[in-house]
């Protein structure tokens, strides 16, 4: 098909979706944003099982102590986000603050800030100027409340003062569930082995936000969970469109009063659960869309099954300790005899050849980009396909490198790309997968890869120590070199296995090859060298690195962009280096 015709076809999609995408507003969407779409559940907590939990927990319905949608919502005009519902007529709605009833100072202030934010976000921002101003600010409220300039920050302080509230003063971003529990002092709050959650941020008073997925019969449901506390201007709330369309009722679960609200139509549903316990305000929002052609049933039973997945006892209380994340320090040890530093690695032929190719490939890639907003010099691209590249200047360089360093260059590769077997000759970089003209649909269709096949491809046993970690992608070359993309909690990083004497195209060039590294004893008992690679030199990013050496290979942990020394140690602890030979 002609590309121009295809572009025209896309131009004729439903107006609703064009308008909906005019401005990013996930809080106004009927369905919360999806997360972790590539997570593979091992077993499913069915709706039937969740219903059994309802009986086991002694859930009963009653109607007193109402803290539901009706009492939490402030009627207000919802900003023009566009609508994805069939009826485009503006509907009445309101704003729900995360930490107070409608008439509380917390709710009034939260709404005032939401309105102010909306006005500021409509402006055209010079993002470079915003970055420059933000970098100079010491007020933690600037980052927490996403203020772009002094006027915005002053407005925020003014609102807090007007309503007699304080602002959040510190935030931590836990990367793993384990960190989240350390920071919050909470235990497991989500029932069901295949229900997934990830903490996003937590504030100094114990307020936090996390998101996740529930595995229910017929599909997955995404949720957002917020716990907030009184006395503070909360940086997040939500708009609720057409509240009269919600069915509202109360139940009791584990001795807690739960206020439920559910709205459902032919295409899907979205629900809310409010719990107020002492100083803790808990708001759970969730939703899903029905798969076309499947029965559209959810109802109160489904909503109560969602509630039954959460242990609200475990969500209350706790003692926040942000130092558990923010206070982590680099922990160097005395290097064992013969431990290779990252600076020494930078002198090896394996690094010298690969880094020169990495730079050349990125310079070639940058030269192809002519858009005026493209920033050259970031050196973020990696070349994954086998050789030759088909680009004369790169293949000429490759021949020079082969001649100079006498390394084995890969001529074939196998790849598993986000859970499916991929055609490596169609992969140029991780972000690019180009299908040649004339390819058939059968060629395009990718076969799903099993976990066992992934480890077999790499020729190594599972080296991941945390259950929160998995391999998202893997590429293996015929030289024995391979690279895996590791997902760990909310972050990801690469592990390169480079047999000595081989050329691995995905070894990144350091910005500061002579940068100091430190020896670190990882959780598996093996020592590695770690380096943060020094200061960033805009637009070029640094390349933090973890280095482990065996008799026959180098094992590299590579991180796209800056990360702290404490984070490097956390990522290194996730690897069982004893698995590598």
């Amino acid at each position, binding site marked *: *098909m*002609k*590309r*121009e*015709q*295809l*572009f*025209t*076809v*896309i*131009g*004729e*999609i*439903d*107006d*609703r*979706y*064009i*308008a*909906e*995408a*005019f401005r*990013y507003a*996930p809080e106004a*969407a*009927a*369905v*919360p*944003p*999806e997360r972790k*779409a*590539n997570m593979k559940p091992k077993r499913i907590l069915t709706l039937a099982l969740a219903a059994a939990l309802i009986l086991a927990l002694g859930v009963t319905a009653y109607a007193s102590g109402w803290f539901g949608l009706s009492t939490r919502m402030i009627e207000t005009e919802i900003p023009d986000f*566009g609508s*994805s519902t069939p009826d*485009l007529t503006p509907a009445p709605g309101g704003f729900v603050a995360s930490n107070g009833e409608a008439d509380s100072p917390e709710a009034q202030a939260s709404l005032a800030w939401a309105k102010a934010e909306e006005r500021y976000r409509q402006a055209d921002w010079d*993002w470079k100027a915003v970055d420059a101003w933000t970098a100079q600010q010491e007020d933690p409220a600037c980052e927490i409340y*996403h203020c772009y300039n002094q006027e915005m920050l002053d407005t925020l302080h003014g609102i807090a003062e007007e309503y007699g509230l304080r602002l959040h003063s510190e935030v931590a971003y836990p990367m793993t569930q384990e960190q989240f529990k350390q920071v919050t002092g909470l235990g497991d709050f989500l029932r069901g082995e295949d229900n997934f959650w990830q903490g996003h941020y937590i504030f100094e008073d114990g307020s936090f936000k996390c998101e996740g997925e529930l595995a229910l019969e017929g599909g997955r449901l995404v949720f957002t969970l917020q716990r907030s506390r009184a006395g503070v201007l909360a940086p997040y709330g939500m708009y609720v469109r057409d509240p009269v369309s919600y069915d509202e009722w109360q139940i009791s679960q584990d001795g807690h009063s739960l206020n439920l609200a559910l709205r459902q139509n032919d*295409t899907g549903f979205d629900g809310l659960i409010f719990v107020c316990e002492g100083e803790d305000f808990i708001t759970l929002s969730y939703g899903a*869309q029905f*798969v*076309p052609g499947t029965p559209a049933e959810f109802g109160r039973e489904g909503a109560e099954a969602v509630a039954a997945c959460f242990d609200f006892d475990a969500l209350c209380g706790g003692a926040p300790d942000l130092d558990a994340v923010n206070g982590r320090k680099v922990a160097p040890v005395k290097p064992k005899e013969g431990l290779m530093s990252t600076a020494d690695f930078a002198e090896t032929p394996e690094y010298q050849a690969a880094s020169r190719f990495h730079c050349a490939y990125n310079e070639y890639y940058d030269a192809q*980009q*002519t*858009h*005026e*907003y*493209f*920033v050259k010099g970031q050196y973020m691209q990696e070349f994954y396909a086998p050789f030759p590249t088909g680009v004369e200047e790169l293949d000429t360089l490759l021949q020079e490198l082969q001649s100079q360093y006498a390394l084995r260059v890969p001529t074939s590769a196998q790849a598993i790309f*986000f859970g499916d077997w991929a055609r490596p000759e169609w992969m140029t970089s991780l*972000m690019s*997968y*180009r*299908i040649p*003209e004339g*390819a*058939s*649909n059968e060629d*395009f269709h990718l076969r799903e890869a099993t976990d066992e096949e992934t480890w077999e491809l790499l020729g190594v046993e599972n080296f991941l120590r945390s259950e929160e970690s998995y391999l998202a992608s893997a590429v293996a070359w015929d030289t024995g070199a391979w690279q895996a993309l590791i997902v760990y909690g909310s972050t*990801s990083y690469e592990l390169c296995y480079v047999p000595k004497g081989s050329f691995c195209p995905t070894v990144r060039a350091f910005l500061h090859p002579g940068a100091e590294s430190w020896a670190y004893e990882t959780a598996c008992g093996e020592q590695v060298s770690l380096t943060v690679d020094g200061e960033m030199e805009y637009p070029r990013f640094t390349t933090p690195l973890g280095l482990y050496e065996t008799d026959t290979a180098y094992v590299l942990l590579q991180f*796209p962009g800056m990360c702290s020394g404490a984070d490097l140690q956390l990522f290194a602890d996730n690897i069982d280096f004893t698995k590598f030979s």
Partner: protein
Amino acid sequence: MTPLEDSEIIALFYERSEQAIVELNRKYGAAVKKTAANILNDRLDVEECANDTYLGVWNTIPPQNPKPLVSYVCRIARNLAAKKYHARRAAKRNSAFDAVLDELEECIPAPVNLEAEYEAKELSAAISRFLGTLSYEDRFFFVRRYFYADSVSDIAAMTQGKSHRISVRLFRTREKLHQYLTEEGLLT
């Protein structure tokens, strides 16, 4: 000053008041220029496209009474920009926009006879149905990338997200679209 409601702007067009263009530019001018700039690689061309867009809106409202107005205006801007782009010589081509077309072609590679207007409309309708099955975020990413032709880094800035994650999500969505269209019988 708060921008006018869409209905008020359309009323000005019906009154043939030149204030309609002023108000349209105030409310959607940035979006029009951004949409054009994502496709065209030249500031003068972007300005020209924006002006042509306003003229196009002036000439068609009335009798059109579009709801929502933003979709109507951005579609005109997009179509005019694409027309200007394809008319260019190779030296002024925009590789970033070419990348958008490349990605679309990846997920719909099989030849479909688009000479028949009916089949083109059927494909658009199918893609719209597909978009309805997506989460808000995936749909947002898709429409920003392939209707508005935003770069991945622009989308990341809009959503305060990471480019890497967005690229991955777009890739998976393109895969799903391909599968969806195959199951609908629209790809041979």
